[in-house]
């Protein structure tokens, strides 16, 4: 019952993802990156290098560094694409029967063998990530790939030790990632894919949850690299204008311009202006030369406008071939890092007259779609596994009419939660559990789901009994609330059938109400918390006096009485600050008296411990369960 991973085997970069807990997740490679360059090499020592490392040593070993083998996979030597690439690629290609072989080191490899090397690395990294063997995969190919190219891609998987459960089209994977297959109606979808080195446009038709590719078009040599080059050329010219120096041959300077151009391109997707700041870019006999230039989004767009416009014609052709009008297109999906550029998004909108869908990372959307397909094949994706959440918070009413939440809204169910509460008065014989639903701070503002009594609590000072309240919410939204007196073991419970039975509008209304009253509720809640605190201080003061009647001097007794009386008057107030001040004042007055008691008699260790215990039990007091018969 292994995992089926989804692989986007790209021309320049590859990515992979897997379904986990019913959701797709991108798998980072061993270097910690979410994409892996589709580059392989053999170095002088005969070691095979794959990915980032292979790319980094490319210029030192250009004849044995193979890239963009996707352009060759499953093709025949005679194909005009192959004939063109022979001139473009930095490595040597040879004819082998009808097909293409590539020289690397002292051996010849087929494109599928080279692709398999990339897949092997992805497989190994996925195994390390998942902690289990990976033997099955879904791999994507461009929609225009013919049977031979698809078969070759499948073979590449086999060589890498992967059983390719399915080959799916890249645009289809993108549509799956956006969940478009779940739409009930028939739709026409345009997938606009502008990657590092290629541009593809596909028109899909969805019917009965099945995607059909109606047409494809594109430009096999148009992508992000062209955009970067245009920006670098502009910077070079500007530098020349400013300083009359040509740095075209200064490798270090060019590299810095390239890095900066890429950074500026990315930044200008979110800001309107960047400062390119390159101190000590180069040096002349007169000393170092700095370069500083402001690049606006408008300027960038005018520079690359021509490249962006080049994508329009293939789109129009694809629409025509599919026999659909732009008004027929129901959804437009963006794929490839370049589609983050606002000018590209604008162009897409202009072409299709519709805002493209966004939300899934365009570099990862294809791998994610492949993983979803893998999940469906493995049986990972099933409706029964879709977990629900509780739409509103659930809790109980505590002292002062406060709603204390046990299960917060949006918690995934099934779930359970317990908390220990206590009594609000001395010798309180019973507690009432009032179950509430809603986001408001005060219980009166929330919906009452039910209430029950737990009685037979052994006589004890307030705050001492421990009442454990447990909420158990099952997958169907049925809520079971149990209250248990830990002292006597007595328990009582209630089952509420329809805790989750709310319409969307009800939930939205409750949420909005809570938001609107948040400030006022918070004030009310704080006032009650302060009142509870003051009440507790009064209780402590009274207890001190009652327990130690014979040890306290008459003067102190009088002072205590007065302080308690003064504090009781303040209880009427609803002002948080006044209540807090009163509690503080009372505590200040008790402290010296308490201190005197300790000085009078060095209490035996046992007594000491008893006192400590009482202090400990203090903690649950704040959440005391209300008592109707409170004094």
């Amino acid at each position, binding site marked *: *019952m292994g995992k089926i991973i989804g692989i986007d085997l790209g021309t320049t970069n590859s990515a992979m993802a897997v379904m*986990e*807990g019913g959701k797709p997740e991108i798998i980072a490679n061993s270097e*910690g990156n979410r994409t892996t360059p589709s580059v392989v090499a053999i170095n*002088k020592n005969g070691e095979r*290098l794959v990915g980032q*490392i*292979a790319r*980094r*040593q*490319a*210029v*030192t070993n*250009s004849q044995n560094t193979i890239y963009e083998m996707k352009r060759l996979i499953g093709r025949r030597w005679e194909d005009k694409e192959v004939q063109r690439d022979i001139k473009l690629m930095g490595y040597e290609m040879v004819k082998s029967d009808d097909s293409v072989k590539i020289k690397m080191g002292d051996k010849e490899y087929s494109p599928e063998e080279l692709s398999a090397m990339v897949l092997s690395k992805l497989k190994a990294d996925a195994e390390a*990530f*998942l*902690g*289990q063997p990976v033997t099955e995969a879904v791999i994507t190919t461009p929609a225009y790939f013919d049977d031979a190219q698809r078969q070759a891609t499948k073979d590449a998987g086999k060589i890498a030790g992967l059983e390719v459960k399915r080959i799916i089209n890249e645009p289809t994977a993108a549509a799956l990632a956006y969940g478009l297959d779940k739409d009930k109606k028939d739709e026409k979808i345009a997938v606009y894919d502008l990657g590092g080195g290629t541009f593809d446009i596909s028109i899909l038709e969805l019917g009965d949850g099945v995607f059909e590719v109606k047409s494809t078009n594109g430009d096999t040599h148009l992508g992000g690299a062209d955009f970067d080059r245009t920006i670098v050329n502009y910077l070079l010219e500007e530098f020349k204008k400013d300083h009359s120096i040509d740095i075209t041959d200064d*490798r*270090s300077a060019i*590299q*810095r311009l390239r890095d900066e151009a890429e950074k500026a391109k990315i930044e200008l997707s979110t800001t309107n202006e960047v400062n390119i700041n390159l*101190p*000590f870019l180069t*040096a002349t006999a007169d*000393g*170092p030369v700095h370069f500083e230039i402001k690049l606006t989004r408008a300027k960038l767009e005018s520079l690359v406008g021509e490249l962006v416009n080049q994508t329009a014609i293939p789109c129009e052709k694809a629409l025509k071939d599919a026999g659909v009008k732009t008004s027929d297109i129901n959804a437009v999906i963006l794929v490839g890092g370049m589609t983050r550029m606002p000018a590209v998004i604008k162009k897409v909108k202009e072409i299709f007259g519709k805002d493209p869908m966004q939300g899934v990372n365009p570099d990862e959307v294809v791998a994610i779609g492949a993983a979803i397909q893998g999940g469906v094949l493995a*049986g*990972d994706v*099933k409706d*029964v*596994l879709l977990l629900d959440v509780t739409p509103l918070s659930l809790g109980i009413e505590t002292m002062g009419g406060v709603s204390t939440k046990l299960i917060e809204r949006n918690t995934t169910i099934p779930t359970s939660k317990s908390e220990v509460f206590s009594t609000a008065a001395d010798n309180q014989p019973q507690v009432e559990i009032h179950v509430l639903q809603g986001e408001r701070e005060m219980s009166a503002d929330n919906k009452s789901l039910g209430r029950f009594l737990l009685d037979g609590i052994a006589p004890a000072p307030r705050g001492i009994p421990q009442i454990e309240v447990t909420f158990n919410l099952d997958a169907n939204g049925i809520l079971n609330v149990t209250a248990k007196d830990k002292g006597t073991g007595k328990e009582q419970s209630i089952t509420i059938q329809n805790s989750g039975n709310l319409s969307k509008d009800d939930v939205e209304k409750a949420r909005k109400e809570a938001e609107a009253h948040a400030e006022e509720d918070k004030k009310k809640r704080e006032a009650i918390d302060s009142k509870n605190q003051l009440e507790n201080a009064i209780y402590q003061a009274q207890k001190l006096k009652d327990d130690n009647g014979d040890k306290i001097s008459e003067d102190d007794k009088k002072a205590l009485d007065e302080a308690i009386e003064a504090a009781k008057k303040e209880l009427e107030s609803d002002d948080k600050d006044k209540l807090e001040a009163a509690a503080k004042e009372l505590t200040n007055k008790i402290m010296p008296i308490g201190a005197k008691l300790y000085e009078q008699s060095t209490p035996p260790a046992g007594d000491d411990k008893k006192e400590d215990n009482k202090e400990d039990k203090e903690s649950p007091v704040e959440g005391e369960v209300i008592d109707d018969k409170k004094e």
Partner: protein
Amino acid sequence: MPKKVKPIKYDQAITELTADLQRIQADFVNFKTRAEANRQRDVNCGKEQIIEAFLPILDNLDRAITHEPKDIKEHVWVKGITQMVKQLDSQLESIGVTKIGETGEEFDPTKHEAIAMEESDGDTEVIAEVLQLGYQFGDTVIRPAKVKVTRK
């Protein structure tokens, strides 16, 4: 006789549900293991990101020191600044950030990115010139050194 139930259906449902439960359980155990590993990695990742954000400034300080003007070389202020940059370097080292890339060092694509190649005779690929220093934090390469490579 009581009505016959259809045991086959139940069996199938039990098998399916057990499989689903196992799957979820496995997902969860794996997730937990990885979450712990990720937590540690994320802590480091946060540090790496901060270090990375300061690299352009470190680069430029290095360049400034390299381009020290000869005429004011002996000026005390210049000397002070040079000392300050040294202090920065040792401070970085003390928190585990080290520089990568030295001329003459053997080329290693796990730490170096070759920007250019100077053809010459020899068997070993070595760094001919460091165009931009690399940095590593502990064992992690935050940025590879950008280098010109030659053979020796």
